[in-house]
């Protein structure tokens, strides 16, 4: 009888590069930068690692296929290395591989790495599309982009709850404003300037009703984690390590895009995934118990409806909570404490691990200027795909002795 992952696995080291336009490094070098910090943090040597996981999404540019880029960049000595990909949730997927590997008892020490080098495309944006999306898919899916697909979430949400366009726009603007404010305090973020609500609301439209500030940018970066079992961590001297309280993934069945019930206003995956995650972690009142969150804020509307899909805001109330400052740094449930995708950009394979990195720092009291007071549970939410068809991966972390 399966018993979930709660408190079986500890994170004993993490590393994260500076994100942004890393003209100075390729994916190979970024992995080493993140790994160097991580292995030092864990107090281990490279040869202590027994198995590794690599999360990368894009094949057209970046480091190439298979897990060979990780094993060769880090010169891992003929150990098992696996590549995983699950759209933008690839980072959490990589973490999941390493976590389950140590929990299964097959290995003691595992590495999880996520990296993406997107700035070799020659333009700003994601490469691919056309027949590389899939032999059948590209013959019938609409010519969509991420902003356009997520923009429909905004109009569906406003229509369902009778929210005036300007009110929703303002609530979305607040989401971005608070993230940008948080990013100012993070030396690893790319964008580190404050913006005002007025600037955000007045900015040009990308895909109605999403404006420039409602969208995150494309960037380069890597992040990694070393995990082991709680018992081994204690043996190694980690008295009160950060442990994984929950780790859940949910994928669309195809129902959203072809059946008749989904209203286009929320994520069916996140709704169910978060419920399972709370159950696994033993959390019964997320609004009270979750201390901080890193949500997948590729678009501010994603973050906004996710407040509800996380069962923290009531349905139809997230926009009010946002405007009230509930998710601000000084609010009840600080969200995107490190600045989020808005300030870091989104190197796809790395983002999930970057989120875990911030929760890890906060729990250990190492978040410097961003430090929250005595956080208990940190939640990361990593989403890949589009509202109509997607992958949702959630992790909940906390200290072992809560």
């Amino acid at each position, binding site marked *: 009888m399966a018993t979930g992952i709660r408190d079986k696995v500890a994170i004993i080291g993490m590393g994260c590069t500076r994100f942004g336009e890393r003209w100075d490094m390729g994916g190979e070098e970024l992995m080493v930068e993140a790994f160097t910090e991580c292995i030092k943090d864990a107090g281990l040597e490279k040869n202590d690692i027994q198995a590794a996981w690599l999360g990368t999404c894009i094949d057209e540019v970046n480091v190439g296929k298979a897990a060979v880029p990780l094993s060769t960049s880090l010169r891992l000595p003929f150990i098992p290395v696996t590549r995983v990909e699950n759209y933008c949730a690839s980072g959490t997927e990589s973490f999941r591989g390493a976590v389950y590997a140590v929990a299964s008892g097959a290995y003691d020490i595992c590495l999880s790495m996520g990296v993406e080098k997107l700035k070799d*495309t*020659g*333009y700003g*944006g994601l490469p*691919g*599309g*056309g*027949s*590389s999306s899939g*032999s*059948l898919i590209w*013959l*019938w*899916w*609409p*010519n*969509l*982009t991420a*902003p*356009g*697909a997520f*923009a*429909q979430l905004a*109009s*569906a949400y406003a*229509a369902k709850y009778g929210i005036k366009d300007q009110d929703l726009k*303002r609530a979305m603007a607040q989401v971005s404003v608070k993230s940008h404010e948080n990013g100012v305090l993070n030396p690893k973020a790319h964008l580190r300037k404050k913006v005002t*609500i007025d600037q955000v609301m007045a900015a040009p*439209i*990308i*895909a*109605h009703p999403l404006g420039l500030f409602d969208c995150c940018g494309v960037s380069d970066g890597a992040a990694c984690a070393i995990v082991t079992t709680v018992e081994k961590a204690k043996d190694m001297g980690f008295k009160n390590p950060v442990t994984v309280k929950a780790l859940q993934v949910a994928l669309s*069945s*195809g*129902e959203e*895009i*072809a*059946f*008749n019930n989904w209203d*286009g206003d929320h994520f069916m995956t996140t709704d169910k995934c978060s419920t399972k995650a709370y159950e696994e972690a033993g959390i019964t009142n997320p609004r009270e118990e979750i201390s901080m969150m890193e949500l997948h804020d590729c678009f501010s509307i994603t973050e906004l409806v996710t407040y509800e899909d996380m069962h923290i805001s009531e349905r139809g109330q997230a926009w*009010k909570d946002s*405007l*009230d400052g509930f998710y601000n740094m000084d609010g009840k449930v600080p969200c995107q404490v490190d600045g989020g995708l808005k300030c870091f950009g989104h190197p796809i394979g790395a983002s999930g691990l970057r989120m875990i990195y911030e929760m890890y720092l906060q729990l250990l009291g190492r978040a410097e200027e961003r430090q929250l007071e005595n956080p208990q549970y940190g939640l990361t939410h990593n989403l890949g795909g589009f509202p*109509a068809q997607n992958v949702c991966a959630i992790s909940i972390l906390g200290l072992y002795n809560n």
Partner: protein
Amino acid sequence: MIGITSYGGYIPRLRLDRMSIFQSMGWFAPAIVMVAQGERSFCNWDEDSLTMAVAAARDCLIGKDKSKVDGVFLCSTTLPFLDRLNAGILKTALNLKDELEAADFTSSERAGTTGLIQALSSVRGGDKKQVLVTATDKRLTKAAYFYEMWFGDGAASLLVGDTDVIAEFMGSYTVTYDFVDHFRGSSRAVDYMWEERWVRDNGYSKIIPQAVNGLFRKLSISMDDVDRFVFPCFFKAEHRKIASKLGATPEKVMDNMHEVCGETGAAHPLVMLVQALQEAEPGDRILAAGFGQGCDVMYFKVTDAIRDLAQRRGIKGALANKKTTDNYLKFLKFRDLIQTEMGIRAEAPTQTAMTVLWRKRDMLLGMVGGKCTKCGTPQFPRSSMCVNPECEEVNSQEPYEFAGIPAKVKTFTGDMLAVSVDPPHIYGMVQFEGGGRFMADFSDCELSEVYVGQPVEITFRRRYVDEQRGFSGYFWKAVPIPGEKPAAGAAEEIRFDDQVAIVTGAGAGLGRAYALELAERGVKVVVNDLGGAPDGTGGNTSAADKVVEEIKALGGDAVANYDSVATAEGGQSIVDSAIQAFGKVDIVINNAGILRDKTLAKMEPENWDAIIDVHLKGAYNVSRPAFIKMRENGYGRIILTTSAAGLYGNFGQTNYSAAKMGLVGFMNTVKLEGDKHNIRVNTVAPVAATRLTEDILPPEMLEKLKPEFVAPLVLYLCSEKCQESGMILNAGMGYFNRAAIVTGPGTAVGDGSRIPTLEEIHQKWDAINDLTGATEFPNVTASMGPILDAFSPKKKEAPDDSGGGLTVKAVFEGMQAAFRADAAAGVDVVFQWDISGDQGGSWNVVIKDGACEVNEGSHSSPTTTLKMADEDFLKMISGELNAMSAYTGGKLKIEGDLMKSQLVEKLFKL
């Protein structure tokens, strides 16, 4: 009999104003102005000959059994493939059976008529039963020359067979000559033209008449036997000359359609023929010709069956659906005649896997999805596992055609980022009637015209062109059907399903109008009518019965009641009948009324009493027992019918005026008593042509004063949505306004301790009468306010420092002192405070450059306006009421910049 059994047409929506070509290129080629009349049709960036053919063919197949089609001919000089049967793509798009013959007819401007003749031959020969012939062309031209002006894009489709023939085929005649008026070699994109004069003189003007005369000889007919002569020739004068040479009078000659779309190549003879068929009467005889390296001529006789053909767009409908543009560069870009930088993003790979195209041909080309045989769910695409989360079936779906199913926009966006030659790219989720949905690219629409809920037509379009390999790929898109966007916030229909209403006097006039409208919205109605004369005498059952019949015919539910409202027993009986028939009463409309007009001097007591009894007492008689029932259910809506006569007075109607005004008084108190039971009562003063006004109003006015114009207001007041109570509303002819009893501020005369004199009252007459600032009082207690206030000590004193006696005025007076300049760096705002209530007033607070100024009155451009009632304001200032709670609870209303209002707490020590 064999011949044409159906027709269809398609002209692209986009039309280029020909003058715009001249405006751009006239400096280079001034002569083109000569043919710059009207507009020419041109394909959208995602259309080509094949997509137009599919559109025309689908139009043609409306109302026809396409499973019987056993031949498909596609005729064009601009098909996308030189080798890959284009007619095979057409047939797959139409989802026709596999056992059929298909052929492409190409290489000539008369490919369309040639295809038609061949189709008719094969049906006549018994070889085939139903052949679909579609002609289409999208010809490219070089810029700034006549042909760019003359040509248009379009398609037409004809079904040929031996059943339900609408135009009987009488015969054809063809001559073939290698007359090269123009040519296009197989590797070239654009036609090469020879001298127009020669083409006219030796080509059109010799060959067409030769062929026509040949047909006349063959069939032993003459131009006298022709009612409509259809043939293409873009030389206008030549077109006329040929017709005249052949003896065709101008009214027989079908216009060559230059001004409305231009000449559509191989499609044109059939485009003109379809146009002719749409105008034709049974018995018309049509002579149709196609020209190109020879000439085909055909002769048809239109039959009676043409009247039975189901409605379709045809060429007429296609021409009407147009969007004219003067953007010549857009025309060139859409035809890929100018190079623009599309960016690296556009370099995405575009190889098509033929194996996938084969396996999924019905899905991609035919828009065929699946319907689960187990749970009945339609779904796109068809898949091995049913998409219904409750259904576990595998391989249970049968093919289900989605292309013709009505659909609506569920969500959409206009995407500036997506690679597009026509930004913003519009796409969204489309929901099909009966189930099923898909994410679709939209086409042929402007972002500002698309709305959620808009109906769309699923249309076959060219999805991509793989330039590297010379391959065109197709799929289906959603084309929004132009129409009125519903007004923002347009309400759903207000329904009253399962509610029960009593309407008194519902046998005719206003009462009947109310009863019918209520029934149409789901209400069960007690139709009460005494059936008497307008003066109240007599009575019979037919009036009420008739209305009950009318309601039942609508599909509604009603019972008749014949009691008189003038007695308490009658009123009770009316309410009882509602309870007995339907179990409750939700709505009562007191409408029953009679007239007994007499001036006061001549108004005998029985005439006074009769009116009071029916109108005023009648309302009491019915409303009292109804109120008791409504109170039990915690819901009710009561309407009383007052009148302008009562409100304003009318000669000869003292009895009526008194009764009608009495109802206003009745309402004022019932409103108070019913409030906590959600029983709302309102009065309506209708102006309408009914039996009661027949003799009073002039006939022309009566015409316009239909009772139906009053009904919507009355019904609205009866609805759950309406929470108003105690209103007096005038309604007539669609004009509505509210009447009210208002009380002016008045004045005290004297000091309240001694009795004022008549002279003092006379002196203060103007002040006593003044209605400036008059208000409505909700009840008697409120009305006592001014009197009590008049002589009581002034409340507006200096604030009590112990905090208990805080006033609104004091708060604003003290605001400047409470201002925190240090927190105001960079702040530039104007707060407008509008406080309502006894201590109410307006103040504006201007904060700029670290300073604060408080003024009375309204600022012309406040940053933020805050509105509160005085009591709430004081509670908020004293900390008793939290500002955020006040806001979310509706006690604090904020307009303008919401976020700046949060500065208030920071800027003032309250």
